[in-house]
């Protein structure tokens, strides 16, 4: 039987420093067929040339700088795979990431999305910080409800909708919350299949102060939607009784 195509989407903004490693970790996947789509979020460094050096193996899209959520959505629109996966330009995949996750979709045809554990790792320049956090939770594998661990059917994105481009940091969490509300069938693998590089310029560090407010608003919206649903459900039940 023909194996389904997986579209691998990488949003990147000035990512030339680590992008080669990321792309190579996709090309090293034991699973085929794949298509690789890099969405350049208005980089001003050598990202374009770097991607060009991969020739036909990597598709290159460009957009004016508008954030990773918009870039991921553009990647989704261009994707032709039955499945989609995401990698951030500074992160890495385990060589068997796609294969092990696809095996779950084979075993469970009802599955909508599969995530795995993520291991943080520090760049050599942050060795001191790494030492500081040696026995801390962030140094251990964590459940990866984040895009770099996600493999999902593309049809799930049609049902749940794209990433919320109004959010600067919480777009990934907000999407997972919406997927859960939608009732997406989800599996979390115990395996570490993605590695997240911690460096000085991590977006989550730069945007941390805004993101607290953003999270509170995301949670409020989730609760509002849930209550509205319950209300609609209750009034539906009422009308059934009439």
């Amino acid at each position, binding site marked *: 039987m023909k194996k389904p195509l997986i579209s691998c989407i990488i949003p990147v903004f000035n990512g030339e420093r680590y992008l080669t490693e990321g792309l190579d970790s996709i090309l090293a996947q034991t699973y085929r067929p794949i298509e690789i789509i890099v969405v350049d979020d208005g980089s001003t460094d050598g990202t374009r040339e770097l991607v060009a050096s991969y020739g036909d193996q990597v598709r290159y899209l460009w957009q004016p700088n508008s954030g990773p959520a918009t870039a991921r959505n553009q990647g989704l629109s261009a994707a032709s795979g039955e499945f989609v996966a995401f990698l951030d330009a500074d992160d890495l995949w385990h060589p068997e990431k796609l294969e092990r996750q696809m095996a779950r979709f084979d075993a469970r045809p009802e599955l909508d999305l599969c995530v795995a554990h*993520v291991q943080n790792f520090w760049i050599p320049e942050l060795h001191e*910080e790494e030492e*500081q*956090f040696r*026995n*801390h*939770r*962030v140094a251990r594998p*964590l*459940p*990866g*409800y*984040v895009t770099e661990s996600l493999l999902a059917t593309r049809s799930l994105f049609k049902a749940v909708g794209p990433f919320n481009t109004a959010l600067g*940091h*919480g777009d*990934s*969490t907000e999407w*997972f*919350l919406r997927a*859960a509300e939608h009732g997406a069938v989800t599996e*979390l693998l115990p395996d570490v299949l993605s590695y*997240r590089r*911690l460096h000085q310029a991590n977006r*989550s*560090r730069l945007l*941390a*102060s805004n*993101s*607290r*407010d*953003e*999270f*509170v*608003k995301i*949670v*409020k919206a989730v*609760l509002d939607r849930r209550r509205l649903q319950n209300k609609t459900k209750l009034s539906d039940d009422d009308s059934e009784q009439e």
Partner: protein
Amino acid sequence: MQALHHRLRPRGEEVAAKVIDGEAIIINLANGIYYSMDKVGGLIWDLVQVGYSLEEIIVAVTERYDVSRERVQADVQELVEELLRENLVSVLENGASVEKRQLEQQEKHLYEVPKLNIYRDMGDLLALDPPTPGLGDTPWKDPEDETPKK
């Protein structure tokens, strides 16, 4: 039971909170548990954030709602114990007084017991990517975690 001149302070590093449309949304970033309180509860959290003492909160609630002071005092004390149990606030025994808000409403609203709604379905979702102010201040704590030294 807390003395009435005590003030509460939201645990800044680990707790993100805001009152939106009269509803307090509170997230414990350390474990992903989130909370909501509307109506009287939303007002109380708002006043906690502003820095009101328990006494001042009780007075403000009694002014706005059709309810006896005794009832409010008992409910506020109970709510405070719950906020402390959930690790959302700490107690300031000798906080400074803050400017009071003027009451504009004419009629008193119908009182409802303030209720802290607790949601525990988001723990895993926030595990990897909690919105924290830099790793050095990271509040992700497990009982077995060693506190990072700065």
